[in-house]
């Protein structure tokens, strides 16, 4: 009886509260979307009709606006960014998953200290290592090359990627590893046949995270790839503003164009966020 009454009582206020929360969230969303609106609207305008006084207005005529020029000027560097971000993401995800697996399931003496040192890498600011980094890249003859930048991103991404994978693998029960050991699987087999198939959600998280980070990187791109033909899109976007005048419609359209791939990655990979992949292996 008491279950029923409490259920009815909880119903009404909860609905009202839900609406209040929903309304608040919509307000937040609108506030958050304001810059996007300005960017899209002004990106679609012709260069002459962009001004501070009319920045909230819709474009008066429908044409490509700044997008045409933005595509032309950013196209090649978008390709460069893909050549940097895709290999770096894949390599760091694979490498990090091995790290995470070893740190989570094959603890060895000193592994905790080693892991702490590895994670400490996350807290080193990019700027502080820039000069030795470039000197080192020159020494190994990778300075100014896309493989060089890929290597930098892979290594700079490893701490966080290893951490994500370690935390993910820690949640997989040890018994599963032990059952596989009894079944005759070794360190490598357990990784490839048991852990990897279960780690898709972690891969998705890591790939989104890494791809976004690498795509959006400006500092390494501008310092390591000095050759304009090889520069990533973030550097090219920065170069859209001329020294004397700025075509705001092109810059706005360019910014949207440059942000598009990360949005697409999120939309497509996000679908593979599979919850409860572990369900059924152990109790629960």
């Amino acid at each position: 009886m008491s279950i029923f009454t409490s259920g009815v009582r909880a119903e009404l206020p909860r609905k009202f509260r839900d609406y209040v929360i929903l309304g608040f969230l919509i307000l937040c969303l609108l506030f958050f979307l304001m810059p996007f609106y300005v960017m899209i609207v002004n990106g679609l305008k012709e260069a002459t009709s962009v001004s501070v006084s009319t920045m909230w207005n819709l474009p008066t005529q429908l044409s490509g606006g700044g997008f045409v020029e933005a595509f032309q000027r950013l196209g090649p560097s978008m390709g460069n960014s893909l050549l940097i971000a895709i290999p770096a993401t894949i390599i760091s995800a694979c490498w990090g998953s091995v790290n995470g697996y070893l740190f989570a399931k094959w603890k060895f003496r000193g592994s905790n200290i080693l892991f702490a040192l590895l994670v400490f890498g996350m807290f080193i600011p990019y700027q502080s290592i820039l000069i030795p980094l470039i000197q080192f890249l020159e020494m190994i003859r990778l300075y100014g090359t896309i493989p060089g930048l890929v290597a930098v991103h892979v290594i700079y991404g490893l701490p966080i990627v290893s951490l994500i994978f370690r935390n993910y693998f820690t949640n997989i029960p040890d018994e599963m590893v032990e059952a596989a050991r009894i079944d005759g699987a070794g360190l490598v087999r357990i990784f490839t046949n048991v852990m990897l198939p279960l780690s898709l959600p972690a891969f998705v998280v890591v790939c989104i995270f890494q791809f976004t980070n690498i795509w959006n990187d400006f500092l390494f791109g501008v310092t390591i790839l000095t050759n304009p033909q090889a520069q990533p899109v973030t550097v090219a976007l920065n170069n859209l503003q001329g020294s004397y005048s700025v075509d705001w419609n092109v810059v706005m359209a360019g910014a949207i164009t440059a942000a598009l791939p990360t949005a697409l990655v999120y939309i497509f990979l996000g679908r593979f966020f599979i919850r409860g992949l572990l369900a059924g292996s152990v109790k629960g």
Partner: protein
Amino acid sequence: MNDGAVHITDLVKTYTDDRGRPTFTAVKKINLEINNGEFMVLVGPSGCGKTTTLRMVAGLEKITSGTISIGDRVVNDLEPKDRGIAMVFQNYALYPHMSIFNNMAFGLQLAKKKKDFIQETVSRTSKALGLDHMLERKPQALSGGQRQRVALGRAIVRNPQVFLFDEPLSNLDAKMRVQMRSEISRLHGQLGNTMIYVTHDQVEAMTMGDRICVMKDGLIMQVADPLTLYRQPENLFVAGFIGSPPMNLLKGKVEKGDGGLVFKETANENAVTIPLKGPVETIAAKVVGKSIVFGIRPEHLTEESKNGSTAPVSSTIDIAEPMGSESLVYMRAGTGNLIARIHGEALYHMGQPITVYVNLDKVALFDAETESVIR
């Protein structure tokens, strides 16, 4: 054939911290002989070292010192897969991304067995376990009992010399547990393999084990078949652990009374006095004046006196729990309750005076200091 015999000699497990300093000794130099084909149950409260011992047999835990041999081979340094063992885990530990078939076949595939052989073995085993119609399903589509049966199947197809069970039934509901209990017992009857079964549940231990090894704090307290364990506990711990409700244990002294020796409880209030006669008097004669513990099982306290071998105890009733066929009557005593399991013909009330008769043939006396039985 003696392939499935397990010999554990001077086995020690000391856990160490990151820097290799010893932190905790879970198993303290135990010796245990498990015969080929025997169903051995390791039982004890949590932290007694039973699971650690099992995991050392499995090869999942490094041995600090001592030896474990299976058959004639010392297995200390062998990988789990080479020890001829299979293990069933408490939480099933199935591979969630594999079908039931693959879950059972994984070990055979890794051992590079022929496809026909794997197919045949898995289908035969799954049929025997009633899983043959769900081989293509994933573990998450199965109920708890079915999952544990898959885990059993995975162990069986390995055709091991020794089966290891680590509390396999504790995640199941009460009904399923009883069913799986008899299924495992039946399996043992059919296969005849050595089985080592870890549990904290004394009912599982008593009903399933050929022999039971009671452990506490990393030490073996007693190894015996279920009835010996019940009738002749070697120490206070076993006496209190086996049986439900447990054996009544009263602290006191043996004194010389008018008509022979009596047991007198050491307490200011409600102290009971029990006259000792027959064989138990001979034993008691050795410990006159010493602190002892007097042990009697609830089922050996009756309402009626029998000739010669019973002694009356009078007290008042604290609580009575009628259960239909019998009643549990908690009587006041100086050092705790004295529980009697009495046939349930009458209802008892709190505060009611009662006299019950102790079956003196079933009394066990323990040394209060060493906690071991006095013979």
